[in-house]
């Protein structure tokens, strides 16, 4: 009985030593592991679960004091002419906070922000689900993408909720889940208005294309073919 117990202990110790050796070999020497670092001592971790959108402007308010304890604003304003997607976070945004009750406020590209009350416990991760989605408005003039200002309305066009600027690059607009309309006035090509509905679901991306998108060239197509039509 005792011999078996000792044998088990020896095997366990051997396996543990092997595991430690393997982990040591696997270290690349940079000191950074894959994934977020461990939770800071004495704190808990608040993670934003925003349907795969890993870059939002948000801030955290301590419910006890009413003070803002953390803020992160990686995105530029929707109406900024220089805004476009420059990269993408590999992990959801997170912040390590002392245990307590907090209000997370996520600013979107319309006037409605999304708020969540969370309770952060020491050494634990708490996920705040943020019901937001995104859309991209692509405006073509001729065969080229253009920058044009547009407005984001509620679905029945009663209230202007926000404004944006299209981009020649990839650019997403983040809004709470729901239905909206976007409007571009007085298009230079036709002089008319363009109003399009936008249905935003959590974790989904909608692309709205205004204007004729460039078609890939086909063999045999050319100016002569167009003239014949």
């Amino acid at each position, binding site marked *: 009985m005792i011999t078996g117990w000792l044998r088990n202990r020896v095997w366990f110790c051997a396996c543990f030593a092997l595991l430690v050796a393997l982990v040591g070999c696997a270290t690349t020497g940079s000191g950074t592991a894959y994934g977020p670092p461990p939770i800071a001592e004495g704190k808990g971790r608040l993670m934003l679960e925003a349907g795969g959108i890993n870059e939002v402007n948000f801030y955290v308010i301590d419910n006890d004091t009413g003070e803002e304890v953390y803020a992160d604003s990686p995105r530029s304003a929707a109406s900024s002419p220089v805004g476009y997607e420059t990269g993408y976070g590999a992990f959801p945004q997170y912040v390590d906070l002392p245990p307590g009750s907090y209000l997370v406020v996520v600013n979107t590209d319309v006037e409605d922000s999304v708020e969540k009350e969370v309770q952060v416990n020491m050494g*634990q991760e708490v996920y705040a689900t943020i019901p937001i989605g995104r859309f991209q408005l692509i405006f073509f003039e001729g065969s080229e993408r253009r920058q044009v200002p547009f407005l984001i309305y509620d*679905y029945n066009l*009663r209230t202007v909720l926000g404004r944006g600027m299209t981009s020649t690059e990839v650019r997403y607009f983040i809004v709470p889940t729901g239905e909206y309309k976007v409007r571009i006035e007085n298009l230079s090509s036709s002089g008319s208005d363009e109003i399009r509905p936008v249905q935003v679901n959590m974790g989904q991306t909608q692309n709205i294309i205004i204007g004729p998108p460039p078609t890939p060239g086909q063999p045999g197509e050319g100016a002569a073919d167009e003239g014949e039509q």
Partner: protein
Amino acid sequence: MKSTREQARSHLIVLLGLLLTLCGVIEGGAAQAIVIDRYGNQHKVERFAYQGRQEIEVYIGDQRRMLQLVLIDRIRFEGEGRDEEQAVSLSMRSGKKERGLMLTGGGAAPHQDAVGGGSSGRRFTGVTSLGPFFILVSDVQEIILQHPEGEEVVEEPVLKATVITLEGKRFEVEDLRFRGKLRLDFFRGRNKRFIPLDKVDKIDFDDSGSAEEFRPITAIYWNGRTVMGTVDASTVRLSGETDRSYYDRVNAALTGKTPSGPFSIGMHHVKQIRFRAQDEQEEDK
């Protein structure tokens, strides 16, 4: 035999630990509701939400409002299922009754660009004992929200304030709101923040830049805290704005009621807002 029992006990402890961790992760305060559809069927729904959110979009007095489900006791849809917009009667937990309009999407054909087209995205979701649940808003007759017993009844405060304009005129306003909300959105640098109006003593608007797009403000809370920033006071018409939305944005940023009728004013006209303390309001009652 003994070791098996010990193993089982350790497994149980690990499972309990996992469950406790999960309980910490699951968000509290999710609403429960009884949903009655147009055929009279009742569904008891947990984790009840509207399009994944704990608030509904309603137009009360032609003003867009986002109403938290935690404030509501009952919602009754009074239109036909095929109506795109239906009249709703709302019974609030405070006992107040409201009537408004809600977009229900019945018969609305989504645009070709709408992802998952073919049906409206307006739906209530949740979980029943049979599994995941969703119902189109146009198919709902009534919703009875069930809040935890003993929970403090949450109600929206009715704010009373004195609004002083740049010309020196004073208005005693009741139920003061900023674009239908009980909070004032402002900017600190380029970051948007909000001031809960029920916690503020007064807000001063800098008159030196009344013609500017952004006006500096200083808000002093009841607890003495001071917050500074800028508010959007633009009177420039935006490309794509309709006459009505332009008028509302510019001239009806702040709304409320006065003894002589409805009140609205633009941010570019305000000099100061002085709020009345809740205890003063209770004394008046």
